[in-house]
């Protein structure tokens, strides 16, 4: 049994017994962590066990909508087959849940009745689809659970997984089983009612419509994707969705569900009933009302939990140095120095900023960064002992020096998040073919909201850099862009219907870059400046005719004026056309134009 230390799980100089790492959750983020930590396992420095509730190896949930409408095959979703991990000696327990964590003796209990010791525990339990309050649909009331290390009678696994079964004809879209339900409806061309117009709701709605289903999106607010888009962007998206054949019902407060009874007496979904009495009938009600972090396990273990398991910037639990959380279950926030942590944490305080984003990118970055930290710490611990190998010492050295060593090195992040836009700011992109929507950061401000006097506060006063907003809206053509900058640096944007502009703004945002003073430069990426079909005047004087010899229209014209009036003569005089010969036709055209012009 490991000795409990106050300084964390790794004490430099201790014997080089492999560090026992247990990962709870084998979704995309858990699997990414496994990939990144494997070199450590392969080096014999760590023992890894992964516990996953689903029966299959990790797959890419982001592509679930594509799969659910038949755009792609099941195997496209696979992120791993566990082969390399198992070859390295890692254990992967699929179809297994962790039912409790005993922090005192550092073990977890499994649904098969066994227990596993750990030195470091990584919670990657992810999130589940929210089930809204609707008359006719049962919800599990998780708030009544009480934390405690001995949660007898409370089966966390059951709580975690045994959502009250949804009635027939009602589904979320969170796993492969859900996808099968949706796929059947799409392939049969059924009527699908999507409740909720967040990014996932809009994606499945648009994809299902493209796949042949009749789709209606019902949502509470004025615009779809209202967490990500401003009114302008949302309005343009609404138009685009309607053009794609999706019925968009806004300002709709769903209240209850109407069921019909099959011949065999089983209830199935018939219609959604809204507060204003509207009835929206369909064959499948698809709930897309956001997700909630799976925090029960942590909560019952007495760990502080808010909208997710509370961890500091190093992804370590506020209350336990041996426990970490990554991905959709993690709520990253600075650990308050003065707070009464541990079991006493009951969520009475305001939820700190930095809740789970629900996006895969940040989750993968967290997995990379935690694996890199573990690797550095564990290798440093080993290097501190007498048995240190030169190779690992070199690695530690290079890690310490901030140098990426050759080979499969720990990787912090492939793209640093935008610091200026604040923590947790991530780019949200609508994955729909033909409808380009991308947004990031805070985009609430409008061009004329901005306080002009902000400039007067200026630098050196500690005041925030001045905010500026630029906007471009052409609803008629489905185009809309808003760019929000602080001190010239892009801190938020919405871009609809302008794919290249959106892509460029994404890069600028992710890198925390300045926008050009003339913001219209960015709009031109989707305009004629970058449209090959309307590239500049082929007969402009400086336009190159012969690439092989760098001969311009101007040079050919001058040569023609000097009496070289055939393609061959031009070739002798200027070498134009004497390379690949592909430009001889154009030389002829230039000569024709010269001949047609009166000599000045």
């Amino acid at each position, binding site marked *: 049994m490991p000795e409990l230390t106050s300084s964390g799980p790794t004490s430099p100089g201790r014997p080089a017994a492999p560090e026992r790492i247990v990962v709870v959750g084998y979704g*995309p983020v858990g699997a990414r962590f496994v990939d990144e930590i494997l070199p450590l396992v392969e080096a014999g420095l760590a023992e890894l066990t992964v516990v996953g509730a689903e029966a299959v190896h990790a*797959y*890419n949930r*982001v*592509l679930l909508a*594509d799969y659910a409408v038949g*755009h*792609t*095959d099941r*195997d*496209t*979703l*696979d*992120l*791993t*087959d566990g082969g390399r991990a198992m070859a390295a000696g890692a254990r992967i327990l699929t179809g297994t849940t962790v039912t409790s964590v005993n922090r005192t003796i550092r073990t977890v209990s499994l649904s098969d009745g066994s227990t596993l010791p750990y030195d470091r525990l990584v919670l990657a339990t992810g999130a589940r689809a929210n089930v809204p309050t609707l008359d006719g649909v049962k919800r599990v009331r998780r708030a009544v659970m009480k934390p405690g290390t001995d949660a007898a009678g409370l089966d966390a696994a059951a709580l975690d997984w045994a959502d009250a079964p949804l009635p027939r004809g009602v589904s979320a879209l969170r796993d492969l089983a859900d996808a099968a339900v949706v796929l059947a409806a799409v392939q049969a061309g059924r009527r699908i009612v999507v409740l909720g117009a967040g990014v996932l709701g809009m994606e499945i709605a648009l994809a299902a419509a493209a796949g042949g289903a009749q789709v209606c999106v019902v949502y509470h607010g004025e615009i779809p994707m209202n967490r990500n888009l401003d009114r302008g962007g949302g309005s343009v998206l609404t138009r685009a969705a309607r053009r794609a054949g999706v019925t968009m019902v806004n300002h709709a407060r769903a209240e209850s569900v109407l069921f019909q009874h099959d011949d065999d007496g089983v209830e199935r979904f018939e219609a959604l009933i809204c507060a204003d009495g509207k009835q929206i009938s369909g064959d499948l009600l698809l709930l897309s009302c956001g997700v909630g972090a799976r925090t029960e396990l942590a909560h019952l273990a007495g760990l502080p939990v808010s909208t997710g398991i509370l961890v500091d910037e190093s992804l370590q639990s506020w209350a336990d140095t041996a426990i970490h959380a990554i991905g959709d279950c993690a709520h990253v926030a600075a650990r308050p120095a003065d707070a009464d942590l541990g079991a006493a944490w009951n969520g009475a305080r305001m939820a700190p900023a930095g809740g789970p984003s629900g996006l895969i*990118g940040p989750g993968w970055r967290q997995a990379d960064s935690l694996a890199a930290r573990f690797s550095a710490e564990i290798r440093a611990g080993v290097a501190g002992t007498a048995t240190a190998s030169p190779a690992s010492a070199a690695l530690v050295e290079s890690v310490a020096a901030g140098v*990426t060593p*050759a080979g499969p*090195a720990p990787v912090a*992040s*492939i*793209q*640093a998040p935008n610091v200026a836009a604040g923590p947790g700011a991530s*780019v949200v992109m609508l*994955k729909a*073919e*033909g409808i*380009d929507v991308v947004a990031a950061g805070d985009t609430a401000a409008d061009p004329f909201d901005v306080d002009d006097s902000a400039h007067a506060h200026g630098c050196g006063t500690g005041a925030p850099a001045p905010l500026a907003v630029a906007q471009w809206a052409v609803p008629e053509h489905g185009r809309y862009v808003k760019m929000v900058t602080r001190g*010239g*640096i892009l801190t938020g944007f919405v871009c609809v219907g302008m*794919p*290249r502009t*959106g*892509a*460029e703004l*994404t*890069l*600028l945002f*992710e*890198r*925390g*870059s*300045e926008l*050009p003073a*003339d913001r219209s*430069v960015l709009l031109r990426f989707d305009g004629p400046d*970058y449209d*090959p*079909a309307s*590239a500049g005047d082929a007969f402009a004087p400086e336009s190159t005719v012969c*690439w*092989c*010899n*760098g001969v311009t229209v101007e040079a050919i014209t001058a040569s023609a004026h000097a009496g070289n009036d055939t393609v061959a003569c031009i070739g002798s005089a200027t*070498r134009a056309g*004497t*390379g*690949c010969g*592909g430009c001889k036709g154009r030389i002829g055209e230039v000569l024709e134009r010269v001949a047609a012009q009166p000599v000045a």
Partner: protein
Amino acid sequence: MNPSPDLDKLDQRVSTSSTSDTKGTTVNPVDTHCPYCALQCAMTLTPAATPGRPTDAISLPVSIAGRAFPTNRGGLCKKGWTAAELLDSADRIREPMRRRPDGSFAPVSWAEALDLVAEKLLAGRAEHGADSVGVFGGGGLTNEKAYQLGKFTRLALGSSRIDYNGRFCMSSAAAAGNRAFGLDRGLPFRVEDLDAADTILMLGSNVAQTMPPFIGHLDGARQAGGLIVVDPRRTATARLTDDGAGMHVQPAPGTDLVLLLGLTHLVLAERLADTDYLARRTTGLTQLRLSVAGWYPHRVQEHTGVPVWQLRELARRLAAGRGSYILTGRGVEQHVDGTDTATAAINLALVLGLVGTTHSGYGTLTGQGNGQGGREHGQKCDQLPGYRKITDPAARAHVAGVWGVDPAVIPGAGIPAVELLGALGRPGGIRTLLVHGANVVVSAPDADSVRRGLKNLDFLVVCDFFFSETAALADVVLPVTQWAEEEGTMTSLEGRVIRRRRAIDPPAGVRSELWIFQELARRLDAPGVYSAEPGEVFDELCRASAGGVADYSGLDYALLDTGEPAYWPYPVGSTGTPRLFLDRFAHDDGRARIVAVTPRAVPAPAQTQGALTLITGRLLEHYQSGAQTRRVPELSGAQPEARMQVHPATAVGLGVIDGGWVELTNERGVVRCRAQLSTDIRPDTVFLPFHFPADQRANLLTAAATDPISGMPEFKRTAVRVRAIAAPGRPATDHERVMADA
């Protein structure tokens, strides 16, 4: 001036297509190939003494005419047309030169120069060990020279420390090709096979400027609307996609690997893969599928700046084409993950079932004139002739047999170019260096540290035609023959072995490298035989390559002189291999290896206050370090100095105007040059050509970081800060710059 006895002997060799007069001087037109790039355009040289020669080029030793050949179809680019101007250039070094104590150079006799070099080589070896003597070769050397240089280093110098500038050029694609196919031949098909394709994807290659006559082979794809050019700049090649000829894809610098993973993801996700081909001819699909599962198009857009619609269109076009080729160039290969990027391009070609067919394929566009042959015959640190591994006991035994030595005499693997240059002048590193056909002060990354390394050497010998920036630092400079003055073979970008032929005599004091190796080997009392006859060296090379990957054993000059196409492998008894892999790949099981690759994190700089990403590249008018082309008035007149290409929107923010001066800085160096404003470049990127010397050397800024597999440096992702500066005084002349460097 009387030629030396050795030269007399050389003079008796003439090409079979020429006749010679009684004094051994050729007078008739001679068929050869261009001195510059790997396209090796065919040309005919007519010596000045030839009766009936056109009078317009009377001042030059030879006049040049294009000649019908599959690669260039009789055409030449500006560089080829003007190549003869270098033969009697006023800058030409015509005698061995030795540095004097005051730093200036004085001519010395060949005997004196060679005695001195031999003495220094022996002394250096005696004092610091054989590996203190390094050799740096070039991809422009003929096969014979490259072969002999490798042999000379291993046997005469006893050193493992040889590598060459191809490390900056082809190493990533070569490593990827070897890994995937078991064999690296730039184009494993004929150049003219491209003509029939209706889709060609060019990744990071600006052929319209680097090998212009090549673009004729893109016409078919352009007519089919299927030329796709991936480049952060709207280059001359990218412009060939205009008017419905195809599509230009403009990713952020350094995101090529992600782009390729995303395309592979789409091909698999949209069921565009050739599953039958994958099952029959490849291994590794499962790992590839898993590795690209996370690179769905929207995430790829987020990283590359390439819109999703364009990714989809590109993937679908590649799959729909009746003939699709994927070609990579230095743009995607010159990265610290260049091998993996080239591998990702190969993987994409494999999932589409393109490689090893008669209608489609993957290829890399070799850059230097003999970039292909130069990487096959022993100039690489880990290699013996025939593309053999120096660590393979069977390979060592075979080559030792041809060389007539004990295999144990052949040293083991050396170190790749950047590492070798990094060891210059350091304790325990390289103390004496021989440079052949390279100008590392301009072309190597972190160029100023290379310059410092050269200055710290005990002794530097450079063989060149001119006082290149590297030659200017030498202790001894040995003047060598140019293309029109020598016999030999080159292996073009399509793996075709072709003849270089002598049209005129070299200047009296100029010698061939083969002769120099022979003379030095004699002075060093080296084991083995060093012929100065190119034909004899080629015959030996062919024997040494027999049974190797790049097998030339069925070739000789007589066969090559018939003009019959000769693509390697060309073992004895065969007729060569125009198209590789039609039946099997070169691995033992005959299958191509799909190697799953993942991008490594490289944080992109925030684009604020002039922080930008620099990419380096080439101009139409110049070749490599510019040591030759900057001395051709027509070329240097058109492009006299480096200009930094920058987007006008970025320029405005920095107060930079078109033609105004800018300064690019980072922790390694400072470059000052004029700016050229152009919407052809991404706003987050600036471009510098690397052909220019002194404080316009783009490589002052590039880092010596290298690909862990290929040793390729990072040339396309350099963080710099750019600011406008006041015009400096009168720009230095080229000569002043060289001398300032020295």
